[in-house]
Structures are given as structure tokens and as C-alpha cells.
């Protein structure tokens, strides 16, 4: 670890923290329907859109209606994306002449993008036409992110409203998330990326003749516009197979910094939106602080492990940290930081190959995802994920102050606990059960690229990433098989909707409750103590479940490597 490495990490954290208030303030205004500087462009358009859709910004929905709208929209989005892939060969914007995508892979990819996972069992430049990349994948990059943001706001309304039947209007939240937040930021970011060297063209792949006279086909495309939303919407699906390790998708350290900041920006700002909407910004900061603690610990472990390097290679007489699968322009600190950022938020973009990380360096991304993507998390998903943990934490420890547990004046009772536990249950169910089946299925084990505990980690990583809607991978695993395409698709749906529906139910139930005014007897939820409690509950309730799996994967691998063993 170097001082310069830590300075870069601190610069990153500093920028994220500085963005929280201004972005949070702006987003709050957007979601509360107040005028912003963009209203003069979008407000008339919005009204027209709502009229076309047969709704209105004044129409508030019960949580079940909200959920039904969200499901209908996602189902339709899935069908469109599936069809686009299946028929891409006959559709325009296909200069490379890509053929139809197979049914299982198309199912997997459609699920993956609709659920904001962006797990990729395909190589972008070798599989998808420009049309699919733009009208299919980029669209879902926007709207799956907007869906997550809408849901987070709906849950926040559950806390901020009292004795209310409704939690907002899904269509309005969806539209505003897209038009006022994602789109304008993406336009600015795209231009910055192109300026920095990211291609944005509809032209065909380029044939170059190298200095040594060989032929090199250089894949290009409308990369920058997809890159902008891929980060901002924590989607993570790369235009290219190598994702943000590809020099076109991440040309230098400044672009890299902007990418990392945009992964965290909206998720971090949403904690502030939460604070503002419930009337106490400190509540938002407390949540962000809990996320921050977990994040920093992850960064320390991964950076330390990667900087320490691979003892098996050191044994050959080479010094230095682990550079296998990393790019020189980012080096070890920015690769380690990116790995933690992208898995803490459910982005899944990578600027280095996680599969080649050291055992412990690669364990942190797994843990980040196993905790349910609550460290900043996916846009929106992170907030509602951590609020579910908050409900559990409040319920477990809140009783210790001698009152029925309450959070922000809302009593946490049977129904909330039931829904929160349902959401919590889906993670081990999806992550562990499918891993357990796959590791004893010879055809599934055949997909692994590394033997021994690392191969186990590859499979564990895959289902963990899918369930957490992250999308990053231990890339050695050959995921493009019918078994993985289908089961990972199912797991992605479980990870998304088995959390969303309970979260909306909680929102509905909380909104209907009275708000109990705070008193000296109220459990304080904006203090350091609460931060500590929340972190503890996330680790113990959310994390311990996975300890056996981690022991048999990365921990066993780490200890074996230390003892000089290979697999």
C-alpha cells in the first residue's frame, strides 16, 4: 500500500461526500414535484406523457397498485429486450452482422438488464448489434435504474407520510428519475467521456494494420452514451467484454475516477433525499456513515491483499503486488478501489479481472454482495436494502430501550418484521441453494476455470452476484450454458422482486401508520451508536450466514496459498 494510493482513495471518498448534499437536495425537489431548472423543458412533456399513459401526477397509488405498475413495466421491458436480441439479425444498426442471440442467453440477458444486474454471459463486441446495445440494453440501463430509484422513494414516503393510504405514483417517479436525474447527467458525462477518448460512433469495426504488419480489428461503437448510464445507474453491463478494463471504456485514471464517483453518486445522495424527506438530514447521514464504515473496511482489506500480492509468484523471485488481470494505468490502488466500489454498489462494472484477484482481495467483493448490496448499493436498491436492515436492527435492539421499536416515529411491528425477514431470506435462498446445487453437478462444475476452492468461489460469486443484482463475475466461469443462463436468470429475478415486493409492502404499511413524535425515550437513530448497531446487525445477521461458504472458498484458498499450495 502506498501513500499515493491512499490519497487517491481519500480523494474519491471526499468527492462522493461533497456531492451528497447538492445532489440530494436537487433529487428531493424532483421527487416532491417542485420546480427545478429543467422544469421548463420537461414539465410540459411530462404532462403529455402522463395523459398518454392515462395517469396524472396527482394520482397517488396504494402500494399494491404501485407494485402492479412496476411489475407490468418490467415484464414488458423484458419481452421487448428478449425480442430485440432474438431478431437482431434482421434489424438495423448491425454493421458487424451479428446473428440472433440464442433463447437461453437472450432470457438471461433480458432478465439481467431488467433487474439492473447486467450479468453478461456474452461478450458485447462479439454478440450484440448496435441496436440491441442502444434500444435494448441502454434503455433498460435507464429504466431499471429509474425503477430502483422510484421504489426507494416509495419506501421513503412510507416513513415520511403518516396515516396515508398511498405511497406515490410509480409512473411519475419513474419518469422523473429518468428525465430529471439520469438523462441530464448522462448527457454531460457522455461528452466528458468522448472528450477523454471513449468512442461514440455507429461506424463499423475498424481494421488496422499494426506496426508489425498484423491485422487488428478494433471494435468500436456508441460506447460513451452507454458507459455514462452504466455507471450512473449502477448497471455495470459493459459495451465490451472486458468492461471498464477496456481502454476504450476507461481510457485513463481521471475517467476512472469519474466512473467510480458516478457509481456512488446517486446511491449516496439518496440517503440525503431520505433524510430530507423524513425531515432530518442527520438520519440520512447516519445511514451513509454505516455504509461508509463497511466500505472503508472493504477497501482496506482488498487494497492490502492486492498490494501484498501473490506469495506463489513472489516465490518465483518477483516483487510487487498482484497485477494479474489489472491495467497499468490504474495500478493496484485504483483497481482494488474500483472492485470494492462496484460490488458495494450493485454496479458490477470492473476495471480489473476479479477472478485473478488474491483470495482475500476477491472475497471482499463477494461479501459486499452477500450483505445484500447495502453499501451504497444499486441506485434505490441500496437504500431500500439498508432500510430493511434498519428495520431488523431497530427491532432487535430497539426493544432494549424499553419501548416497542420505532424508526422515525413509525412503530416496527409484526407486519414490517415479517416483510423484512422475507426479503432477508431471499438472499441466502438464491445465493447458497443454487451454489450448493451447482457445485455437485458435474456439468455445472465443468464451467469453472480454476480448480479447488477458487472454482467454488467462481460459482459462489456467480449466484451471489446474480442474487445481489450486481453483475460482476469471476469471469473464468463459463456462464453461457443452458444451466447457468436459466438458473442465474431465475436468481436475478428472485434477488430483485423478492426484495422489492416486501419493501413496497413495508412502505404501504408504514405510510398507513401514525407518526409517533420523538421524545427522550425514543431510540436515537442518528447517532454513532446507531451506526455501530446497524453495522453490527448487517454483519452478524446478513453476513454470518455465508461464513461456511467463505471458509470453503476464499479463506481456504488464502490459507492454502500462504502454505504454498496450488490447485
Amino acid at each position: 500500500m502506498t501513500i499515493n494510493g491512499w490519497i487517491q482513495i481519500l480523494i474519491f471518498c471526499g468527492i462522493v461526500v461533497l456531492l451528497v448534499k447538492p445532489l440530494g437536495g436537487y433529487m428531493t425537489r424532483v421527487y416532491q414535484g417542485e420546480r427545478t431548472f429543467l422544469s421548463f423543458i420537461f414539465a410540459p412533456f411530462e404532462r403529455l406523457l402522463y395523459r398518454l399513459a392515462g395517469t396524472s401526477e396527482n394520482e397517488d397509488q396504494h402500494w399494491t397498485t404501485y407494485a402492479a405498475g412496476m411489475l407490468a413495466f418490467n415484464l414488458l421491458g423484458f419481452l421487448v429486450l428478449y425480442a430485440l436480441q432474438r431478431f437482431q439479425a434482421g434489424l438495423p444498426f448491425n454493421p458487424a452482422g451479428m446473428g440472433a442471440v440464442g433463447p437461453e442467453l437472450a432470457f438471461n440477458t433480458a432478465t439481467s438488464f431488467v433487474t439492473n444486474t447486467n450479468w453478461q454471459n456474452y461478450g458485447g463486441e462479439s454478440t450484440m448489434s448496435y441496436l440491441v446495445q442502444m434500444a435494448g440494453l441502454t434503455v433498460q440501463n435507464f429504466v431499471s435504474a429509474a425503477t430502483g430509484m422510484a421504489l426507494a422513494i416509495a419506501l421513503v414516503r412510507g416513513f415520511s407520510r403518516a396515516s396515508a393510504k398511498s405511497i406515490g405514483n410509480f409512473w411519475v417517479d419513474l419518469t422523473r428519475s429518468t428525465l430529471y436525474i439520469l438523462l441530464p447527467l448522462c448527457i454531460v458525462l457522455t461528452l466528458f467521456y468522448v472528450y477523454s477518448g471513449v468512442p461514440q460512433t455507429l461506424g463499423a469495426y475498424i481494421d488496422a494494420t499494426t506496426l508489425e504488419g498484423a491485422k487488428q480489428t478494433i471494435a468500436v461503437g456508441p460506447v460513451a452514451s452507454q458507459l455514462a448510464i452504466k455507471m450512473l445507474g449502477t448497471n455495470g453491463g459493459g459495451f465490451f467484454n472486458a468492461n471498464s478494463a477496456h481502454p476504450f471504456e476507461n481510457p485513463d485514471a481521471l475517467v476512472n475516477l469519474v466512473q467510480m464517483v458516478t457509481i456512488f453518486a446517486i446511491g449516496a445522495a439518496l440517503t440525503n433525499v431520505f433524510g430530507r424527506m423524513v425531515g432530518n438530514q442527520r438520519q440520512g447521514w447516519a445511514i451513509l456513515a454505516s455504509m461508509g464504515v463497511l466500505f472503508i473496511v472493504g477497501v482496506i482489506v482488498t487494497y492490502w491483499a492486492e498490494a501484498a500480492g501473490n506469495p506463489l509468484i513472489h516465490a518465483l523471485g518477483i516483487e510487487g503486488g498482484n497485477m494479474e488481470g489489472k491495467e497499468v494505468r490504474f495500478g493496484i490502488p485504483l483497481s482494488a478501489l474500483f472492485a470494492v466500489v462496484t460490488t458495494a454498489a450493485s454496479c458490477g462494472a470492473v476495471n480489473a479481472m476479479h477472478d485473478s484477484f488474491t483470495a482475500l482481495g476477491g472475497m471482499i467483493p463477494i461479501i459486499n454482495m452477500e450483505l445484500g448490496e447495502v453499501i451504497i448499493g444499486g441506485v434505490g436498491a441500496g437504500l431500500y436494502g439498508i432500510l430493511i436492515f434498519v428495520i431488523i436492527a431497530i427491532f432487535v435492539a430497539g426493544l432494549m430501550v424499553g419501548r416497542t421499536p420505532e424508526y422515525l416515529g413509525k412503530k416496527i411491528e409484526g407486519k414490517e418484521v415479517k416483510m423484512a425477514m422475507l426479503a432477508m431470506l431471499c438472499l441466502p435462498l438464491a445465493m447458497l441453494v443454487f451454489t450448493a446445487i451447482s457445485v455437485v453437478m458435474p456439468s455445472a462444475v465443468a464451467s469453472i476455470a480454476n480448480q479447488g476452492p477458487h472454482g467454488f468461489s467462481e460459482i459462489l460469486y456467480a449466484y451471489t452476484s446474480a442474487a445481489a443484482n450486481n453483475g460482476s463475475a469471476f469471469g473464468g466461469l463459463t456462464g453461457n450454458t443452458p444451466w447457468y443462463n436459466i438458473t442465474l436468470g431465475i436468481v436475478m429475478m428472485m434477488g430483485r422482486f423478492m426484495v422489492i415486493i416486501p419493501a413496497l409492502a413495508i412502505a404501504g404499511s408504514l405510510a398507513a401508520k401514525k407518526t409517533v413524535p420523538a421524545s427522550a425515550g425514543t431510540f436515537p437513530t442518528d447517532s454513532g451508536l446507531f451506526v455501530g448497531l446497524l453495522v453490527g446487525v448487517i454483519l452478524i445477521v446478513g453476513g454470518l450466514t455465508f461464513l461456511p461458504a467463505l471458509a470453503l472458498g476464499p479463506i481456504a484458498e488464502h490459507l492454502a496459498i500462504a502454505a504454498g499450495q496450488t490447485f
Partner: protein
Amino acid sequence: MSKMKSVSIMDAAIIVPAIGAAFKKLDPRSLARNPVMFVVAVVSALTTVLFLKDIAVGNSNLGFSFQIIIWLWFTVLFANFAEAVAEGRGKAQADSLRRTRTETQAKLLTGEDRAKFVMVPGAGLKVGDLVLVEAGDIIPSDGEVVEGVASVNEAAITGESAPVIRESGGDRSAVTGGTQVLSDWIKVRITAAAGSTFLDRMIALVEGAERQKTPNEIALNILLAGMTLIFVLATATIPSFATYAGGSVPVVVLVALFVTLIPTTIGALLSAIGIAGMDRLVRFNVLAMSGRAVEAAGDVDTLLLDKTGTITLGNRQASEFRPIKGVTEKELADAAQLASLADETPEGRSIVVLAKEKYAIRERDMRTLHASFVPFTAQTRMSGVDVEGSSIRKGAVDAILDHVAKGPAAALASSASGVATMQASSASIVEIRAIAEEIAKSGGTPLAVVRDGRPLGVIHLKDIVKGGIKERFTELRRMGIRTVMITGDNPMTAAAIAAEAGVDDFLAQATPENKLQLIREEQAKGKLVAMCGDGTNDAPALAQADVGVAMNTGTVAAREAGNMVDLDSDPTKLIEIVEIGKQLLMTRGALTTFSIANDIAKYFAIIPAMFLAFYPQLKVLNVMNLSTPQSAILSAIIFNALIIIALIPLALRGVKYHAVGAASLLRRNLIIYGLGGIIVPFIGIKAIDMVVSALGLA
């Protein structure tokens, strides 16, 4: 304060039957009430069956499996035992209650005449029957006195042997079956059928027979069930992980890991905590009609407290005579004393005492004075005396001034001298009002005195705020509870006393209607309200309040409306009730936190032991340096079982409540039960491991 004989936790009389009960509770129907322990029982049974199969097949290493299975069953039995001990304490109390419920013969009246009755068995009485109860008789069932006055010994239910007066009409008309009339006679209309009397309900409550899970307990059960399911997934997937790694894990080890991970500690003690909470109230001589009410008590945000008897001593005392101009203090004192001679109220007595102390006016005999006493009525709102041709009245200032306006002075108004009197009067009326206002502002009650239509002055009656009450309110404020004083006084007086007592707010000139209104307003703000009351007109408010504590001396209506009954009829107890409610919730939270925090150490004990066979390098996770894998697993499961026993006293006693803010309470409890929960099992498991390996058990 607790008058019932409290039973110590580790009394052999309770322990021995509890051991038996622990086995009886293995009945699946009773286990099913507790999801966590039910699951433990199921897996224990499963491993037992597998074990029997192993014996049949003749597998080796049975000794280890056998020990694990024994401890699995102990885990279930210890949980049952905890519940049985908690119930046992209640049962002991129920038995002593039951002994008082002897078979009674009732004198069922056949007509108006109280000489005409037939003897019937008490159990055969119906609601609405009229019975006669005479000195020495046991009151056959709950009822309301419709005629007569009697002194009653209620020791059977309150433990207090001093007799109390029960009379028809008013707020002391309720009698309880099983209590004994000591003197005189009363006619009682029966209000409860046999089997549903107050005493029956009380027995059922302390026995825990009627115990239903409270909302909080249900939510906690959901949480525990959910965590159990999560750990089912965590452990059920291990065999296939192990297969991948080229090894295998015996079922008995998986079961051991599973049972130690699921929250057995809190699962085992949850119902004991609930029963003990009710029991603690009972020992405080408060009967909660449901566990829900006890929980609600912990949540109370606003306490409505009656001023009289709770905040101030019941009686106001004369502290000063304030004559108007032209009247001497002694003159006023003399008149006031005369007017109060026959007044037996504490206020009246205090006037006589003050006159004697300050002005040495000796007590006089009404009869020798040929004075006739004019008693207080609700219409006149004054009392006094007619003596030697002059009439002296004292009473509320308004009432007295009213009396002056249309009294003898008004009659004289036609005469020339009457005009002067009138003028004098109007000047003195202004003065009286001024003095009265001054007294009221200071929290006192002004009592005007008039002689023959001429106002003399005002007696200052002072409310005496109970010693130590201000500190109690400060404590409550620190707990986050707002206190509201309810009083019939005018707002000025109320404000002064409120300030002196340190309550947060007050409701002056309270009527049953505005009391109810106040409760509704507080509840609309999302607050939970507790109050106590005794009169029939308190019933609507008691029913509306989230915690309504009815005084045992109160009317049947009040007792029915409230969700708790205070057998001692001590309104101050509301504060203790709140503390008991909080203690109940805290104990649950503390043990839940402790239970969950325990998991860390258990993982570190079992995981290395479980995987060591195929990944020897995992021995570094054996941070406790446990001697062998078997010993590690066995120690963890033994610790898991023993901790239940070790925590029974805490579950029954409850976590101590400190009246500090929630923040410091949380910090304290998080350190003790959260951090403690992480550390204790590390030490415990290590210690057990040392014993286990020393004994050569594994």
C-alpha cells in the same frame, strides 16, 4: 410495597415440579407454540432416529453422537424448564388465591325485606341476583352494593388486612367475591357469574393459562422464525459444499451447528420473560387483563395523573387568614373557626387547627353555643353556621359572592343604610376577588368567609405536593414520558401546582368529557396514554386510554373499562407500571441481542472443526484453540444449552431499568448484551472445552 408473598426464583417448591413439567412440555402440541424450540425438537428427534439406525448398523464413534444428542434434548428440556419455572411462580400464587375461594353459601334475597332469603350455593348465583351479606359472611361473587354500608376485609385479593368500607352509591360500591364482610350488612347485586369472577380471572392470569402472545412477542417470533429459516439454508447447503471440496460432514455435526446458530437462547426464554413480566405486576398488586396492556405500558408517552392523591396529598390545609380592609385577622379567624367547627372535612379541621395555633382561638362546643350547622351542598357550594342570630358562611369565592349579592345585604338594599352597605360591599367584593386571585396564582385554594352578608376575608387553603414527586417527574421526563396533571381546580391554581410539582402540563377544571377529549388528542398525535381512575364517570376515559388502571376501590364500571386493576388503589403506581412494561420489553431485546451476538463465537468453534478433515489449513480459524474438533462441537452445543439455564434468573427478574434517556440506556445495554454476547461465549466455550477434554469426553 409488594404485599403478596413473593416467591424466590430458586425455590425447591417450584423447581421440582418444573422439572416434571419440562418433560410434559415435550408434547408436540405445546412445543409448536414456539417455532424455534419446535425446530430444535424436530432435529433432535431426527438425529436420535439416525443414531438408533447407527447402533443397529454398528457404526463407530457413537459416543460422540450420543453426547451431542443428549445435549440437543437438554436444549429443548431447558427451554421447557424455563417456561415451567416462570409458570410455577404464578401457580404458587394462584394456589394461595384458590385456597381463599372456598365454597360459600349465599343468602339469596327473595324480596325487598332483608329478612327473607334462601340459602343457595354461591356457585349457583346468576348475574342480577340480589344477595344479603352480613357480618362474618364471605361475599359469594363479584357484585355491586345496592343498599347498606359494611366494612370488608379484602386481604384475599389485596393482601392488605385493614378493612375497607363498601357502600351503595358513589365510587366505593364494588365488592369482590371471596372477600369477607366484617361488620354491618350489605345487599349486593351479583355482576359476575360463577367462573368468571374477578378472583377467577386473577387465578387464570397468574397461572398464565390465558396468556396470549402479545403483538411484540408475535413480531419477535417472526424474526426468530425467519432467522431459523436462514440458518436452515446456511447449514443445509454445507454438505454439498463439502462434497465439492472432497469431504463430508456428519449429520450430527450439521445439526449441532444449526442448533447453536438459531436463536435458541431467546427462543427458549421468550415465553418465560412474558410470564415473568405479568407476574412482576401481580406482585406489585396490579392485575393486567392482557399482556398487550403490559407492553403498552412500556410504550406510554403521556401519563395522565390525578392531582389529588397522586401529586398532592389528598387534603388541602389552611395556611393563612387574609382579611379585607377593616377586618382584623383575628376577627376573620374567629368567624372561620366558628364556621368550621362542625365541618369534619380535612380542610375544615385544618382551619380550626390553624386558628388555634396562630390566634389561640380555642375550640368551642357547638351545643353550648346553640349554633346550628349548615352543611355543604352541591347547590350552595358553601357551608357554615348560624349562631347567636348571625350567619357565617364559608365556601368557594364565587358562591360566597353570589350569596352576598342576593343575601341579607340585598334585602337591606331598600333602606338608606343599605346603600352604604352596598357600596362597602362592592369595594370589599373587589378586594376579596383580588385576594382570591392572588392565592389562586400561588397554587392555593381561596375560601371566602362572610358574616351576615359582610365579606370578612379569605382563607388560604394550600395543596401539599407530595415529597419526592418532583424527582419522579424529572425521571419520567428523562424516560421521555410527558406527565399531565388532571385537576378540578381553576387554571391559575392548577398552573401553580403544576409548576411546583414539575409536571409538563395540566388539565384544569377537568370533566370526564374534556379528559376523554385530551386522551383522544394525544392519541391523534400518535402518543400512547396511560391514566388511572376509579369513578364510573372515569370509565370512558379508562377505556379510551391505552393503559387504563382502575382502582380496586372503584366502581364496577371503572374496573371493567380499564385494562389493569390496581389492588392497592394507589394512583402513584402508574409510574411503576410503566417501568415494569419497559423492563419486559428490555429483557426481550437484551436476550435477543445476546442470543444473536453469540453466533460469532459458535461459528468460530464449529466451522474449523467441521472442515478440518479436508482443509487442514482452516485450523487457524480455531481462535479459541479448542482441543479437538469433537470437543469444539460438543463444547459449543453444551454452552448453547447451559446458557439457557444460566439466563433463567435474568429472564424472570428482568433487565434492570434505569430512568435515563434512551440513548444512554441503549449504549449501556448494547455494551452489556451486545458486546457481552460476543465475548461471553468465547470464554464459555473455551472453559467447557477444557472441562470436556479433561474429562476425556471428546
